């Protein structure tokens, strides 16, 4: 089998006059977690569903483990496991029935152990509809991986989940990756992408705006460091002074926020100013740019609310 589990070349999907996806290309390698990021309407779900064989590309080529999803759907079914963003099961179906049902069509034995692993052991006989969102998501993930596919596509798998469920699903994804499963993860959650994905592609208006590892992406941004300062008399909030190396300034809650090219120059100047004003420092935070900052930089160049240049 080729090392590129997924290969997308000049993929375009057009709906009437609207180009939902405009000639994107990327590859996903065996055993990696690849993140597809982008705002609503960027083309993530269209790309995912085309890889799953649910939509036909308007032009370009898509290959999943050497299979063309739109032409060889029967071969594709056993190679991929999918957790759709918007899908459901019959309301009266129980997790046990769902597992037996889908495994029978994949011609494998029902994997009740996976349901146990994902915390559905005591819900095997419960109907799907009354299950909580978290349990429904866990069931969807269980069904996606039950036939041990080499590629799993997850579309917003942790949306609407509580923190504990999210952490647990992340652990399951890492377990799958450790077993050699390749995962494509479409998500809005930048922290999730930064934590889980080895590489990401940021989609914007149907095109890939940036691609690389989260570390590479954050490094290739403007590289502004975020400095947040809160003081007793709020002298920084009342003042419009610009400190050395500061590119942008904003006010967030009780904090004056500075986006600086060089924290080493800015921080001492801020502290000196507070001393001069006889104002007492309450809190000072220096943060490196996150994937979310980089994402906002790409998708919304004027993202910093209330920012002054």
């Amino acid at each position, binding site marked *: 089998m080729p090392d590129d589990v997924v290969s997308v070349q000049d993929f375009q999907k057009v709906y009437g006059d609207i180009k939902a996806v405009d000639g994107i290309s990327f590859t996903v390698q065996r055993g990696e977690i690849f993140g597809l990021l982008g705002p609503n309407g960027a083309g993530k779900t269209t790309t995912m569903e085309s890889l799953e064989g649910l939509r036909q590309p308007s032009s370009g080529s898509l290959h999943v483990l050497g299979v063309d999803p739109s032409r060889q759907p029967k071969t594709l079914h056993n190679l991929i496991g*999918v957790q759709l963003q918007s899908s459901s099961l019959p309301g009266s*179906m129980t997790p046990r029935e769902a597992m037996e049902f889908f495994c029978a069509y*994949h011609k494998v034995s029902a994997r009740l152990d996976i349901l146990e692993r994902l915390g559905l052991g005591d819900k095997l006989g419960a109907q799907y509809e009354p299950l909580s969102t978290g349990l429904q998501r866990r069931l969807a993930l269980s069904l996606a991986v039950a036939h041990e596919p080499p590629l799993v596509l997850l579309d917003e798998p942790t949306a609407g989940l509580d923190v504990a469920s999210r952490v647990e699903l992340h652990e399951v994804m890492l377990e799958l990756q450790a077993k050699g499963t390749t995962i494509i993860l479409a998500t809005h959650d930048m922290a999730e992408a930064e934590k889980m994905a080895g590489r990401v592609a940021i989609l914007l208006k149907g095109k890939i705006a940036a691609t690389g590892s989260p570390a590479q992406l954050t490094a290739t941004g403007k590289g502004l460091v975020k400095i947040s300062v809160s003081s007793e008399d709020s002298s920084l909030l009342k003042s419009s002074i610009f400190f050395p190396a500061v590119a942008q300034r904003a006010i967030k809650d009780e904090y004056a926020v500075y986006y600086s090219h060089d924290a080493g120059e800015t921080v001492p100047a801020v502290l000196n100013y507070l001393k001069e004003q006889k104002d007492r420092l309450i809190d000072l935070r220096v943060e490196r740019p996150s994937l979310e900052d980089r994402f906002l930089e790409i998708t919304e160049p004027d993202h910093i609310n209330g920012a002054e240049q």
Partner: protein
Amino acid sequence: MTAFLNHFMYDFRKGLRDKSLLMLNYLFPLGFYVLMGLLMTGLNPTFAATMIPAMILVAMMASTLLGLPNPVVESREAGIYRSFKINGIPALSIVSIPIISSLVHIFLVSLIITLTAGPLFNAGIPVSWFYFALILVLTAFTMASMGMLIGVISPNSRSIVLFSQSIFLPSMILGGLMVPASMLPEGLYRVSLLLPTSYAMNAWRGLAFGLDASFNPLWALLILLSSGLIAFILSIYLFNWDSKNRQSRHSPWLGMLSLLPYVLGAILLTN
């Protein structure tokens, strides 16, 4: 085969587990049967002669025309069929399994009606059990295929009500269930021949119960079979996996073709 059986067993259980399906498959037809048995046999003594097939037809229509389409539209809207497609579940299974499980529900209700209507309401008993069973299977298949077709071509629940009731209500009144079609005025008799129940009742009267038939009952069998096969094939042909991403470019109005045998029957059998 395991997958097909597994799918069938789930679908059959769903027909008992789901409250609205339980109502349409069992509670409504059996309740209606008891009510009609108590009321109609007193009001109209001729009703008892064909009470068994008439009540079986009510059960069929409730289970198929009223019960089958809604889960199809709901499953499409909820994205259930998308999950099915990704997991390799063929359209043939999605269309045929609910039809088969409806047939089983219909047979169970028919068995209850057939076994109890004689002792309880002095209903007429078939003189040919072979034809009785044959017409039952054929009519149930045709009704179930039409119910599935309504689900496949309906974009939403409102359309289901329109399509289903446009067959169900006239069938109850004109379809030969309460009053023999031969007693209808000429104009209404022609209209009644647009309804599958008229053909089923005619076939049952002539072939299974030894009563007068309005026209050759073998024609009725042929028309029912033609309509059922057309509806079944169209259900697969027009099936859509996804309400948001319609891949079938065929007009849902093609579904009207399943009524063509009845139109021909209404034209040819009254001249």
